[in-house]
């Protein structure tokens, strides 16, 4: 097994009373697209900031390419491209100035590639950044993050608030990165359909804790959605042991559960209900089920 690009080990972080991350451990293998999902405030941005060395771990370790981003920022950051939710690009700079400035830091910057992207995105080189729309700024941030073909592309909720065309550009960038041998992408998002399309691995954070971290196919295979029909309307949700979430009213109840742990027919018999539907749960349902726990 190749050395993981990112290795987070028992990372914890609290801000005052609030526990932002509790005992998070994950490893990202090279060449994969790693999706990070979670509701607002679950800790995704905090985790990513730890990866960049912007936060020092309170307990646990963070290693990128085997190096500590706090102790050795120059070596780590030179191999990373980063795009954040609201890229804080200086408003007074012009587009060409920003590209020229960013180019100086990365020896592997490909000027033709950057120029091609700039034309494709329709960015006027002489425009000042403060006159650009939000989507254009995101595209510019994407060029700055991508043009040096970094080994690791880190995207922190890059698509939030952007129109579908810009979101498409970002997804294309993710796919371009990962089709190049050995390059990895980690991105956090709460647009689950995007995550589902492009991720190999998926991790979910809920209130700072890691709920699951596995290949996407495994996650989808493991979760099943079972619809039960009761003869008599139930007042309270039926008690299904091993279920992640039970929802519904009256006679119809939907159970999201771990497929390995529950046998639908046996469970239905035990509860005195009939199985109406038994399908793979959609990622949306899996997410909501874990988030409501």
């Amino acid at each position: 097994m190749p050395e993981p690009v990112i290795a987070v080990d028992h990372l914890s972080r609290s801000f005052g009373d609030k526990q932002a991350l509790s005992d998070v451990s994950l490893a990202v293998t090279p060449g994969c697209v790693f999706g990070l999902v979670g509701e607002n405030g679950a800790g995704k941005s905090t985790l990513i900031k730890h990866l960049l060395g912007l936060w020092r771990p309170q307990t646990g370790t963070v290693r990128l390419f085997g190096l500590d981003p706090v102790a050795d920022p120059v070596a780590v950051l030179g191999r990373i491209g980063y795009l954040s939710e609201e890229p804080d690009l200086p408003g007074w700079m012009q587009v060409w100035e920003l590209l020229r400035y960013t180019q100086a830091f990365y020896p592997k910057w490909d000027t033709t590639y950057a120029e091609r992207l700039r034309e494709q995105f329709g960015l006027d080189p002489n425009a000042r950044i403060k006159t650009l729309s939000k989507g254009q700024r995101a595209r510019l941030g994407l060029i700055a993050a991508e043009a040096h073909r970094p080994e690791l592309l880190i995207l922190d909720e890059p698509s939030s608030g952007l129109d579908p065309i810009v979101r498409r550009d970002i997804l294309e960038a993710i796919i371009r990165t990962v089709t190049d041998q050995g390059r990895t992408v980690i991105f956090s998002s709460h647009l689950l359909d995007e995550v589902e399309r492009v991720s190999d691995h998926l991790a979910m954070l809920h209130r700072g804790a890691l709920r699951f971290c596995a290949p996407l196919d495994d996650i989808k295979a493991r979760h099943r959605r079972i619809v039960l029909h009761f003869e008599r309307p139930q007042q309270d949700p039926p008690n299904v042991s091993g279920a992640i979430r039970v929802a519904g009213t009256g006679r119809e109840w939907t159970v999201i559960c771990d497929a390995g742990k529950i046998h639908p027919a046996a469970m239905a018999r035990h509860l005195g209900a009939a199985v109406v539907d038994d399908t793979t749960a959609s990622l949306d349902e899996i997410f909501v089920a874990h988030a409501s726990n």
Partner: protein
Amino acid sequence: MTLRLNPASGTPLYVQLVERLKHSIATGAIKAGEQLPSVRKMAEDLLINPNTVIRAYRDLEGEGIVELRHGSGVFVQQSVEARADVMRKAEPIMRSALDRLESLDLTEDDVRRLMENELALRRDAQRRKRRA
């Protein structure tokens, strides 16, 4: 190629892709001997993970519809024409089976559910065999 894949539906993305490609080949939109788009291009056009495309192509290769030539790309097999014959031969088999099921007084939904169940069982078995 304008294929739309729906990640939220119950079927995995690679299965959807396989179905669409098969449909395109069967209808003649992609001819025998023609080269399919590279993994990279397909992934970028559809905005899906390249591994999904690789898996779909491998599945098609396993079914004998396409051929992965190292260094050149993915090509539709010449013998695909023969597939059309096979499909035509399969039609009456399906018809007689459906007739017999209908005689058991099953509705269309029942039949569909039975077929999907059977296919799912076969698929699981195949996957388990591949992993082992």
